[in-house]
Structure formats: C-alpha cells, structure tokens
C-alpha cells in the first residue's frame, strides 16, 4: 500500500520529482565515472597491466649492418626470448604505398599482439585471417577509410617489380603513439614475407632490472639488438591518470556537496508544498515514524532510479574520457553500482532526513488550515 502510494505521489509531483532525480542522477553519474576511472582505468594503466602488456621494445641497433647479419641476430634473439618464456609480439615492417602515398605495413601475429597491447582501443576487430588488416586511426582518417572496405597496398621490390596485397579492413586502432600511422596484418602472402625491419614488444620480468640484465647478456653474446624500456610512456600515462583522478575526485566532491544542498532544498520545498497532505496523513493515523518512512521511501525510489541512470551515464562518460585521453576502452565494473547506490542513498537520506525533521515539526491543525 505504502509503496504504491509513494510511487503515485512521485508521479503526482512529477516536476519536483524530475528535478530531484536530475540532480541525483548528475551526482550518481560523476560518482560512477570517478569509481570506474579509479578502479578500471587505474588497473589498466598501472604496472599490473604492464606485466601482461609490454614494458620494453627491442630493435636492431647496428645501422648499416648487412641483411644476413641482421637476420641471424634476430633469429638468435627470438630463440633466447622463446627459451626464457618471455611474452613477446614480433613485428616486421615494410614500406608500402596506398593510393600512391607511403605508409608502414606491420606484420604481427594477431594473438601475440593482442596479448601485448591490451591498452590499444580497437574499433571493430583485430585481423585474424589472411586478407584482413587493421588500420591505425590516423591513416584511416587521412584516407577516410571505413570498416569492411578493401585496401590495396603496393610494394616496390628489388628489380623494379611491384607486388600487391589486397586486404579488408576489420578494425581501426587507437594506440596513442606512432602505431596509429601503421597498417597491421596478421598474415601476409608469401611474396610479402621478406620484411627488412624487425622489432618486438616484450614483457620482461623484473622490469628495468630485467631489461638491463638482458641488454648486458645480448651485448656479451655479440648480438646487435637493444632493448629499450617503455617506462616513460607508462609513467606519463600514470601521471596523467593521477591528475585525472585528483581532478575528477575534486569535481565529484564539489558536485556531491552541491547535490546534497540542491536535493535537500528540493526535498524541503517538496515537503512544504505538501504540508497539507502530510498533516492529513497524520490526521488519518500516520505516526512520525511512518510519515518519515513514507518520505524516506520516496527518496529511496528516486535514489535507486538515479543510481541506475548514473551508473549508465557515468560508465559512458568514463568510456569517453578514457578514449579521449588514454585511447583505451573501459570495462564496466560491477563494484561501481553498489558504490554509486550507497553514496546516492546517503545523499538522499541526508536530504530526506532534513525534510522529515521539517515535516514532523509542522503543526497538523495549522498545516490543514493552509497557513
């Protein structure tokens, strides 16, 4: 009975209900966004992620070395990495032309690359089959490419022969670095497999210490390959993340306080507008406790709705924020729902509590006279 009455009362005072709902939803959205950024994005950006993602990149450093020497060293290096069980994504590069303009084509096993680049945001999917490719966002924007479109790449080979490769675009990649200027394929036709430049993304255990040891070992073995730590990127991202968390935390706190004030005043005005109705409820038998319960139930219904709206909007906001700044996609976190709900509920209870105190201080006889 009382739940039905609370629902009807909320609909009957629709304008006021909407105002409170809007204020609480804004607050809930910011709380959900803040929680998502704090939990999900931090997880993705911290070293925990980097343990599974790359923390180093390997290059052939001896410029001008013969192709045979390069291939030999690279083969040995691959063997060492495989033996030590270090997660790696092997990349080979070639300059190709698309619509007459040069672009770097990267060949990498899709699964290996996906494992080492979880922070990349891929619109669509990564290439799996031969004849499929993933295009860097900047390349896609330059040629106004669309998903599913076919791309013709040409490569000038020794002796002046031109080799062609046609691929269907399965995804666009947002990595936030030079990889956005590249085209990625997982498989290449035989005639395209003589790539000259090689690189590897590595996830080396023990971080910088491990990288240093490995570089030393390579140097002692006379292998002309150098491994560089990717820490600057990681530290840069983490510093930005910290600033964002601090900024969104401060903004959320400010909005939280303003919302408590706004919702309190809206609930108070709602109660003052309804003082005759509340006096009548007392006249027909509602004790202070049941009257307070009724008003709190109304606030609870609004808080639940605002929490659901807030979680959805907050997740979208954090997705937008993450894509804009970090080029990663957020994973909705279930923990944000109870956090948002509890905080929204606290705001509502504080605001409703003030209203209830006011409602209970009303003199029913005076309120019924409309004074």
């Amino acid at each position, binding site marked *: 009975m009382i739940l*039905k009455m609370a629902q009807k009362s909320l609909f009957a005072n629709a304008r006021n209900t909407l105002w409170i709902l809007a204020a609480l939803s804004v607050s809930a959205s910011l709380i959900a966004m803040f929680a998502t950024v704090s939990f999900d994005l931090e997880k993705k950006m911290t070293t925990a992620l980097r343990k599974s993602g790359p923390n180093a990149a390997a290059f052939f450093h001896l410029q001008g070395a013969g192709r045979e020497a390069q291939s030999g060293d690279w083969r040995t290096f691959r063997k060492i990495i495989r033996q030590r069980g270090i997660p790696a994504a092997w990349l080979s590069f070639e300059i190709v032309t698309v619509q007459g303009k040069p672009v770097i084509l990267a060949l990498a096993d899709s699964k290996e690359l996906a494992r080492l680049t979880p922070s990349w945001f891929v619109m669509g999917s990564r290439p799996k089959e031969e004849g499929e490719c993933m295009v860097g966002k900047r390349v896609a924007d330059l040629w106004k490419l669309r998903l599913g479109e076919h791309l013709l790449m040409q490569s000038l080979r020794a002796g002046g022969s031109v080799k062609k490769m046609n691929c269907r675009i399965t995804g666009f990649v947002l990595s936030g670095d030079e990889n956005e200027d590249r085209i990625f394929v997982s498989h290449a036709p035989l005639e395209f497999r003589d790539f000259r430049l090689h690189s590897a993304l590595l996830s080396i255990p023990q971080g910088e210490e491990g990288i240093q040891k490995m570089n030393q070992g390579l140097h002692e073995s006379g292998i002309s390959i150098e491994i560089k730590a990717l820490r600057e990127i990681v530290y840069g991202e983490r510093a930005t993340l910290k600033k964002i968390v601090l900024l969104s935390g401060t903004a959320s706190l400010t909005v939280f306080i303003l919302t408590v004030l706004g919702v309190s005043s809206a609930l108070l005005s709602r109660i003052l507008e309804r003082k005759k109705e509340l006096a009548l409820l007392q006249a027909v038998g509602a004790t202070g406790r049941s009257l307070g319960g009724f008003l709190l139930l109304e606030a609870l219904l609004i808080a639940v709705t605002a929490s659901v709206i807030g979680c959805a909007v907050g997740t979208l906001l954090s997705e937008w924020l993450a894509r804009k700044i970090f080029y990663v996609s957020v994973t909705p976190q279930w923990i944000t729902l109870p956090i948002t709900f509890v905080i929204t509920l606290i705001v509502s209870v504080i605001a409703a509590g003030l209203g209830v105190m006011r409602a209970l201080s009303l003199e029913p006889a005076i309120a019924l006279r409309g004074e």
Partner: protein
Amino acid sequence: MSKAIIALHQVHKYYLKGVHALQDVNLSIEEGQWTAMMGPSGSGKTTLLNLLDGLDRPSLGRIEILGIDTSRFSADNWTVFRRENIGLVFQQFYLIPYLTALENVMLAQYYHSMADKRQAQKSLEEIGLGARMHHFPSELSGGEQQRVCIARALINEPKIILADEPTGNLDEDNEKIVMDIFHKLDAERKTVLMVTHNPNLGRLADRRIYLEHGRVKHEHWV
C-alpha cells in the same frame, strides 16, 4: 445514565498575537450522544474540535477522552489514540489527490491495522459510491468527496466521530445525503460531535452547544 466519553476541564487556547480562542471551557459529552457545536465564525468551534482530535493542544486545562487524560500525550500517542478511537470528517474533505476514492479509504485502514479492500469497497457501496470508487478526488463532485471522507472516517469503526462543517461546502441535494448518513449514525448510537453553521443539521442533534468569543454561551438539549 450514559457515561461521559469526552470531558473538558477549564480548557483555554491562546494563539500568538494575544488571540484567546477558547476561554475556560468545561464540557462533558456522553456516549452515544449527537452534539452540535454552533456559533458565529471565530467563536472557537473549530479550535475546540482540533483540541478534541489532538491536531492541536490546549494552552491550559485538561481534556479526557474515553476516561484517558490526553494532556500528557505526545504527538505519536495522539496519532495512535486518534486512529484507534476517532473518525474525522472535514469541511474541505482533505482527500489525498493522487489516490482513488477506494485507496483513500484503504489508507485509513492501513494506518489503523491493515488495508482490507473488500471492506473498503463495501463501505463505499453503502454510501452510494460503488461506481465511483476508482475515481480520483478531482473526478468526484463535492458531495461525493465528502462521502468518501465520511467513509474514511467510519471505516475503522471509531468510538467518536468529530465532524467540522460536514455540509459546509455542499449543495442542497448533497447536504441531504450527508444528513441521512449522520441520521444513520445517530440511530446506531454513535457519539458524534459536529461543528456546524447549518441550523437544519444542528436541529437534528441531541444537544446543541452555542459558543461565542471562545466561551460556552448556552446549551440546548432535545
């Protein structure tokens, strides 16, 4: 001889700005009696009624209802006492606008003990509102709203019915319907205390008390 169900002892009511609404009122109302409280506007009739239903408190004096001294009642004590023993009928009906006629009646049941839809439907059918029970107050005429208000007041079978100008806002036809309901209550020997300006309604009562300037001026027994 019937016992006194309501007793007022030297009751005064002051408001701010020096308004003395009731002065030294001493009254005794017996069980099963239909009492009409009459007098000009501002004589203190409604104030007296509000003291008897606990919506307002006397500034001085003591009120006993059903043999219980109410002067030390808290607001919640009064609410519980009222919903157990008193039915209220208002001049302005005071129905909850977003509840149907049936729900308005069920609300009083809910706060008293538990909502009983069938009993609430029956009570509305008895006063001729069977076809209008699912209508909202805004869809009902003044007379119909007053009947819903009466059904709400009677649904928990109160020992005392306090009515403030129950026909004050009604036309002649509806006034007659409401008067018939009060007649029926009188026949059932319910204790009714009614504030009214209406001499026709006042004449039906067993006892008429005239108030003037917050004092009992005179009484008339039938």
